């Protein structure tokens, strides 16, 4: 069953997430694919990544920062932010920083402990794709984005907080 929500609907997931311990041989073994690599991999194997004929994206753990990606951040089509546990709120700040400070226009994907009841907050911080945890009901999750019809704060979709609009 499809577990990826992107821009508000269920869709196929073509991306494979590489674990932290992975080495560059994974790329050699699977040409022409799409991989989301951990930050350390991204920093360590730039040459292999340049030579690779498929797609490469980066994922950040919750204790890592967008600025660590370096200059090529803007060239990425996708950055994934991990939730090791749904109660770890650091990736919300990373998403907002990517959108507001770095003005990143590509896809920001939530990965890890991604659950129905946090999707609304994630989307407002700038996430637009959600790789749901295996046990989540995708149909139920689709309803999460309309939990609230309005909010006090600004969001990535609505740059003005309510006080500038009411």
């Amino acid at each position: 069953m499809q577990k990826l929500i992107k821009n508000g609907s269920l869709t196929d997931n073509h991306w494979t997430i590489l674990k932290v311990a992975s080495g560059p041989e994974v790329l050699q073994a699977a040409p022409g694919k799409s991989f989301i690599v951990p930050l350390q991999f991204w920093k360590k194997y730039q040459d292999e990544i340049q030579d690779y004929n498929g797609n490469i994206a980066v994922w950040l753990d919750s204790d890592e920062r967008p600025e660590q990606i370096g200059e090529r951040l803007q060239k990425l089509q996708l950055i994934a932010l991990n939730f090791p546990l749904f109660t770890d709120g650091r990736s919300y700040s990373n998403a907002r920083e990517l959108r507001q400070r770095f003005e990143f226009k590509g896809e920001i994907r939530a990965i890890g402990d991604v659950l129905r009841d946090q999707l609304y907050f994630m989307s407002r911080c700038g996430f637009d794709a959600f790789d749901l945890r295996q046990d989540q009901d995708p149909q139920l999750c689709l309803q999460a984005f309309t939990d609230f019809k309005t909010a006090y704060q600004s969001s990535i979709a609505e740059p003005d907080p309510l006080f500038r609009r009411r």
Partner: protein
Amino acid sequence: MYKYDGYDHQMLADRVVQFQDQTDRFIAGKLSDAEFLPLRLQNGLYIQRLAPMLRVAVPYGMLSSAQLRKLAFIANHYDKGYAHFTTRQNIQFNWPNLEEVPELLGHLAEVEMHAIQTSGNCIRNTTTDQFAGVAVDELEDSRGYCEIIRQWSTFHPEFAFLPRKFKIAVCGTAVDQAATQVHDIGIYLVPGPEGEVGFRILAGGGLGRTPVIGQEIFEYIEKQHLLTALDAILRVYNREGRRDNKYKARIKILVRETGVEEFRNKVLKEWDLIKDSSLMLTEDEIQRCKSFFTDPAYRELENNPPQLTKYLSQDLLFTNWHQQNVHPHKIKGYAIVTVCFKETGVAPGDVTDIQLQQLAELADEHSFGEIRVSHKQNIVLADVPQDELYTLWKRLKSGAMATHNLGLLTDMICCPGGDFCALANAKSIPIAESIQRTFSDHEELKNIGEVNINISGCMNACGHHHVGNIGILGVDKKGEEFYQVSLGGSSKNSASLGKIIGPSFSQQQIPEVIEKIIAVYKTNREADERFIDTYQRIGMDPFKEIVYAKAD
């Protein structure tokens, strides 16, 4: 008071539906305990020792008579006929059924109330001085800014899963009644270089296991920067606050481990990026929020009218109450009345449904239909004409609400403790009661004067024991309940944390220990010294010597 518009109402309505759905999924087994936990906590719902406990938000302590009547209905219908005022100016119900909570939230929403973010690792209810808007020593009414902060912090998408709970207090008066310096963020309204009012912002204060006084992050910022400054502090905390140990997760530990200089630099760096963003407050919004807290239709009245002075010379009980529980008001002919909920034998902060009804009536008849909850678990009628004080007092008396011990030794802060709370190491309510029974003579209490005793049943410090002039902390010693006593705490402007006097005591020893401490104070005090003044002058030793003296 703040009045909801369509947006505010919509958000509450959506919240009720959302929580109904979450509760249904939990009951149906589709949501695990661990996954439901933060959701219910962010809705004020604890699973307690005996039953769930629901904490309802009272934004900065303000309640209308209509809201009081609704709370009375809830106390009667969903609880066992009472409610409990907390040290965060909120109100708790101890017996609702889990299945009924969404319905209960629906009732609250009808009167613009909710339980949003009254618990959990998020930004909690913002508190302020219970005399805001009527105090004689006020620079500017803090409540408009509290409302601005309430809206900014409600469902803030970035800060819903902080390392730990986060509490903000705002103070606009010269005498700090809001314990501002022991909050995660403390905000003082202050005059700026050109005389225009702005904010001084502290961060890193807090009670709990490691009590700390907050440190200055912004010496002065102009009003329009309030939310961007808060956002910057919260973002640094959200990213860098410790998540590996819940006892080291509060912002106070981050500020201490980072060092205040470096922490400030990090905040300023964040602030620089968002200072001029859309989050910058507009003058329109400041004026809009302030417009809900304008003066009611005061009449032209005289101070000390004959209807007051007549009874002050006739009725000793009324005089005692007037002396302790009535404060001067900024408007001539009016007074601020504090209804003290510290009757001996009643758990501090407990109120019955009938009393809630009566308070609603009294607020309508004598105080423009509004009341405030104080962080000392009392109720304030803020706008009472002085010529109605005697009538009001008689009505309070008939409702067992005329206790005249405000600010005296028996006006204690006390958490629910081991009788109700699952976290407690020891009971706290019986301790409060045993002290109240020991000090039952009002003349003697007046003689002792201002001293506050704060009691917590565990080191989470809901009873603010660190900032009590006398603090009592329940501890567990090999399965037995013991009590650690500290002296010298204060939550006022010159905030200080109490020091532990020595080895802890059994429950039975406590009244005698307090008697000894008070005796040392009385022997040593000079002129008009309060307990805290004498303690600060003579130090711990004289107290220690008497308290631990061996009987011959």
